[in-house]
């Protein structure tokens, strides 16, 4: 039993409770959507038996192939990727791969949310977004306590995590 001295602070308990429920919701949703995915309850964006052909690709090429699947041109994608490889990283072929692939990055999974494979991102996004909610929830308590330093830290963390989640920050690819 925790005594008064060793009891966690009010904001710590708020954080812990939200984390607890959010984590359980995220896990349950991820497990359910994954089972629906593997048992084929919904149509998938990428045919599940073709997936082993794509998971070896670098992410930039993978996204490009995804963009071509959307247009029914996935088999032609190989030629362009090979061309990019042969011509070096700054060729027109590589630029095209990057530009098309980029359209499949960020929050674009939402437009395919009805597909079995993309549905899994709901649970993943809940798990990845939970910390932002926890931080936002302790801000009023920190304000009430006039804990200025930690209030600034909490707001800054919400901004940092929101920036990461926003999809604005993109890697330059390979």
């Amino acid at each position, binding site marked *: 039993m925790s005594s008064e*001295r060793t009891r966690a602070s009010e904001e710590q308990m708020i954080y812990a409770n939200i984390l607890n429920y959010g*984590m359980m919701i995220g896990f349950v949703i991820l497990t359910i959507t*994954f089972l629906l995915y593997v048992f084929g309850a919904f149509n998938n964006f990428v045919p599940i038996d073709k997936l082993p*052909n794509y998971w*070896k690709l*670098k992410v930039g090429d993978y996204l490009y192939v995804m963009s071509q699947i959307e247009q029914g041109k996935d088999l032609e994608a190989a030629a362009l990727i090979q061309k990019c490889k042969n011509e070096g990283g700054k060729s027109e072929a590589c630029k095209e791969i990057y530009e098309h692939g980029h359209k499949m990055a960020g929050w674009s999974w939402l437009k395919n949310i009805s597909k079995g494979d993309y549905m899994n991102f709901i649970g993943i996004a809940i798990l990845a977004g939970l910390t932002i909610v926890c931080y936002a929830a302790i801000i009023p308590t920190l304000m009430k306590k006039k804990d200025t330093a930690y209030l600034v830290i909490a707001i800054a963390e919400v901004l940092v995590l929101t920036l990461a989640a926003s999809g604005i920050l*993109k*890697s330059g690819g390979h």
Partner: protein
Amino acid sequence: MLMLVTLLAVGTALASDVPAPAGDPHSALSSTVADPHAAAPAAGMPGPDATSSMPWWGWPLILFVVTFILGILAVLGGVGGGVLYVPIIGGFFPFNLDFVRGAGLMVALAGALAAGPGLLKRNLASLRLALPVALIASSSAIVGAMIGLALPQNVVQIALGGTILGIVAIMLMAGKSDFPNVKADKLSQSLGIMGIYREESIGKDVEWNVHKTAPGLAMFIIIGVMAGMFGLGAGWANVPVLNLMMGAPLKVSVATSKFLLSITDTSAAWIYMNNGAVLPMMVAPSIIGIMLGSIVGVKILAKAKPKAIKWMVIGLLLFAGLRALLKGLGIWK
């Protein structure tokens, strides 16, 4: 352990190049474009080919079994799941390292999210200690993730191998201090980084402070970058800095480190996710496998011999680190 090694050996053999099945145009895509930006075949890690005769569910099933075993070993060896996951899955499975690191971060994140509520409620993890550290580590992890996704894969493999071998060195050499007796410095005093927790093993309430706050916080810039770059989680680095450098009690350091991963890995995980490097077919079985393995690991913990397990984990990391290094150098494909 024996089962894990057998699975990895079988996996590596199965994943080795096998002629593509005739009449499947998609397999041509895989075999033609696999790793197309590699500078040279030696450096490009041609590695296992996805065109093996294994059905689509074969690798995810093996992944589930291996992550289940890793979950047990992680608990018994006192390490996070991510540090075992990335080098082992990256070294012995056909998945691209981009997806392995994305999944590694999700695995570490899931473990931290699951442990966080209990640690916070028992006041073992300290929000006051974690918040300033997390702001620095999570910002740095974003930078690390972006660097990691932009670098050529052989460079990442070499750096990953070097880092894992460095972690082995830390595990072998770093000491620990159950109750460091330090005097709070000005920065920690002004931020109010202090606390009291109930130490059940001695039946006392333990008061704690931290010192060397500024250099300690600075260390988390490096830790954050490495966590984001390699998708490792960073408990292996968090604990020595919090405990040995800043002077937090060992239990508080371990618990705060675990909780801290939920914040650091969140920022990096979003970068991987927004750059397309999160594959549900890898993430879901990995998370479920490692969570179930952790539950079993906790039950075995009471009967296990911790020293023997620690040596097993060190051996496994050494093997996986060497594999990553040699794979990156093109010596062991």
